[in-house]
């Protein structure tokens, strides 16, 4: 009986969702705020990647909120699960093939992550993507070497400095410009690595912050199992 009711409810919801998505115009006409962004982003912010310009410049305050949410989640997880001594991990390594391959892949994955967040204003990607790619590389090392440990002091210092950079650069906008996160540095030549004013600085800070937070979360969680 319960199963029949839930299947009927799911069917009704699915039918209406299907109709809504069927009638939604997809990439056909650009109007309103979307059109404004596509036409004016390059002149106003100097960023080639419109998504980055929206995330960091037009909606930069929201990004500060997202970073805060991630920070609070990592802090709460650490407060619940962090064990100073940690469970004693078994002295058992992964096989030789896994260890050699992850030794070769680890620097390349971290380099890819750094590339993604340094070039956030030019190519797809940015701070959140680059930071999570770096955390994936750290996870690879955790899985191949059971004794591989993250330095929590260094992680906290990196995280705090990155957050401080974000807020300081944002407050600079209030001093030199008209609003929080105002783009007050010279915009430069669009397409160059050093262009788009404060956008690369903020995204590099976000990349460091997200990478440090996710690595810390992984280390805290892996310490709870043997």
């Amino acid at each position, binding site marked *: 009986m319960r199963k029949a009711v839930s299947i009927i409810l799911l069917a009704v919801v699915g039918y209406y969702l299907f109709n809504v998505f069927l009638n939604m115009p997809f*990439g056909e006409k650009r109007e309103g705020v979307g059109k404004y962004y596509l036409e004016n982003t390059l002149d106003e912010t100097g960023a080639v990647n419109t*998504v980055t310009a929206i995330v960091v410049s037009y909606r930069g305050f929201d990004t500060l909120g997202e970073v805060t949410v991630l920070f609070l989640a990592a802090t709460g997880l650490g407060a619940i699960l962090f064990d100073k001594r940690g469970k004693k991990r078994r002295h058992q390594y992964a096989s030789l093939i896994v260890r050699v391959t992850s030794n070769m892949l680890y620097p390349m994955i971290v380099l890819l992550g750094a590339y*993604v967040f340094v070039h956030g204003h030019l190519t*797809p*990607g*940015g701070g*959140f*993507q680059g930071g*999570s*790619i770096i*955390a*994936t590389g750290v*996870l690879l090392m955790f899985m191949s070497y059971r004794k591989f440990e993250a330095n929590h002091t260094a992680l906290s210092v990196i995280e705090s400095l990155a957050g401080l950079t974000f807020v300081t650069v944002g407050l600079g906008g209030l001093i030199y410009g008209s609003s929080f996160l105002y783009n007050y540095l010279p915009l430069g030549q669009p397409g160059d690595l050093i262009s788009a004013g404060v956008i690369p600085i903020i995204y590099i800070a976000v990349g460091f912050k997200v990478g440090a937070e*996710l690595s810390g979360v*992984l280390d805290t*969680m*892996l310490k*709870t*199992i043997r």
Partner: protein
Amino acid sequence: MSWLAVLVLILVIIMIVAAIFSITRKDLIVAVIGTSVISVILSALFYLLQAPDVALTEAAIGVALSTIIFVIAIKKTDRYEE
């Protein structure tokens, strides 16, 4: 139908099959692998639909990080569903 529409249709069908697979398994590790297959295909779909930013996030978080968090949770509890 263009080739893009056919490709998207095939990927969506594989996603639905993987979702049903991961719901019906009693071995929870296998079910988690099913969800990470969904994430891989979802990231390919995001790339095909011209959202490479989202595809990068989905590939890193959906495939690697959330899978390992599920695996840790399963390791601390029971592996088999009753």
